[in-house]
């Protein structure tokens, strides 16, 4: 369609509007009726976003944030003792990677608990937005885990005299790859007792990473590219799982899931 025709049509609409008189009496009558509707209306005042966040943080179970901190502190303590022994170097990294991989289950449990025993339905009916609750828990859990991983990597690189970035890749990869499995358990498993499923997945991941990373070639210089690739794949899979979870939340599928 030509631009000239579009401009012509636009002009016609403007002309139409200018000649379109509104009957003021009828308009006033309609507005009076609307005013009546406004008078009869009872506004259900919903709390502000800040207030909702405050209430969420106040009432959420703090154990799921505290567990990773305690576990990471325990791991660092254990490593401090082991680092005094001669010959323990890469094994420390394997131990930390396995430990960090296990700590991821607390984040997954914290998110999945939102939907336990119809809590999602209940919270959604009390002004909370289920997507909002999930986002808050994930952000908090991600922040705690992120800080713990950074602290561990920083301490470890001092003991090992390795680059911080390299140590971070060695720790982050098992953590993210394991989280992919935990979220897959959360998204696709419909068990009565999901805590055991998460714990089982956590133990399997921790053992698998520990055994795998004790292999002599795992931390060789040439393997760094493979580590990076695995990290990128894990990030993509994890992002896809979060998108899938948010879609299930939006469509209400998640709210219908419940477990003890």
């Amino acid at each position, binding site marked *: 369609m030509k631009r000239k025709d579009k401009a012509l*049509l636009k002009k*016609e609409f403007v*002309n*139409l509007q200018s000649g*379109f008189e509104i009957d003021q009496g*009828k308009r006033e009558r309609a*507005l009076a009726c*609307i005013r009546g509707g406004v008078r009869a209306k009872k*506004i259900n005042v919903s709390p502000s976003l800040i207030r909702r966040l405050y209430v969420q943080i106040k009432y959420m179970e703090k154990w799921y944030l505290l567990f990773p901190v305690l576990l990471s502190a325990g791991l660092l303590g254990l490593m401090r003792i082991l680092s005094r022994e001669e010959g323990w170097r890469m094994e420390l990294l394997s131990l930390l990677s396995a430990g960090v991989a296990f700590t991821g289950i607390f984040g997954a449990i914290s998110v999945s608990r939102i939907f336990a025993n119809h809590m999602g339905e209940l919270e959604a009916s009390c002004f909370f937005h289920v997507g909002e609750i999930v986002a808050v828990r994930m952000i908090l859990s991600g922040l705690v885990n992120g800080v713990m991983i950074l602290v561990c990597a920083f301490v470890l690189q001092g003991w090992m005299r390795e680059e911080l970035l390299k140590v971070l890749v060695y720790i982050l990869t098992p953590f993210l790859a394991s989280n992919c499995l935990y979220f897959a358990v959360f998204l696709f498993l419909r068990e009565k007792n999901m805590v055991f499923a998460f714990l089982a997945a956590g133990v399997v991941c921790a053992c698998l990473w520990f055994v795998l990373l004790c292999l002599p070639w795992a931390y060789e210089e040439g393997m760094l590219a493979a580590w990076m690739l695995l990290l990128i794949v894990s990030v993509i899979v994890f992002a896809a799982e979060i998108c899938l979870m948010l879609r299930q939340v939006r469509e209400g599928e998640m709210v219908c899931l419940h477990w003890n």
Partner: protein
Amino acid sequence: MDDRTLIYKIQRGEKELLNEIAEKYYDDIYRFCCYLTGERWDSYDLAQETFLRFIQYVDHYRYRNLKGYLLTIARNVCMDYFRHGKDEVLLEEPLGEQERRSAKEASQDEISALVERQFFLGELQKLPQIQREALILYYYSGMKIREIAAITGVSGSTVKSRLRQGMEKMKKGMEE
């Protein structure tokens, strides 16, 4: 006060501000209903119904584009009107009561402008409803393609094709 602030305050309990929204958008919604249904008199009620529905759901409204939201409600109200009340209108009476009164006192130029407007309105009413609403939302309400797609619940390419077809028919009708 902008729309976002109005909605924020209304949802905090200042319900009287709903009247301000009605005052601000009543004319636009009325004209939209009028162009869509072709019924000048029923459109006062349709615009009123639009605001009453908005008042009903305002507690749960998450602010994005207030005018777009009101137009979406107005469109649904008009659809209900077609569904329950009557079939699509082809052409309203050529001149409204007010126009008839002013035509008696108008000059030759004003009369020809009036006839031209009525002719344009008539051509608009001849279009299928889906093309008519796309044209009205785009050219009259100044909505973007993606906004029209959201209001009408179709894809952007469908809106573009409806606009193109509607334009062609209007052009043809006006040339004849």
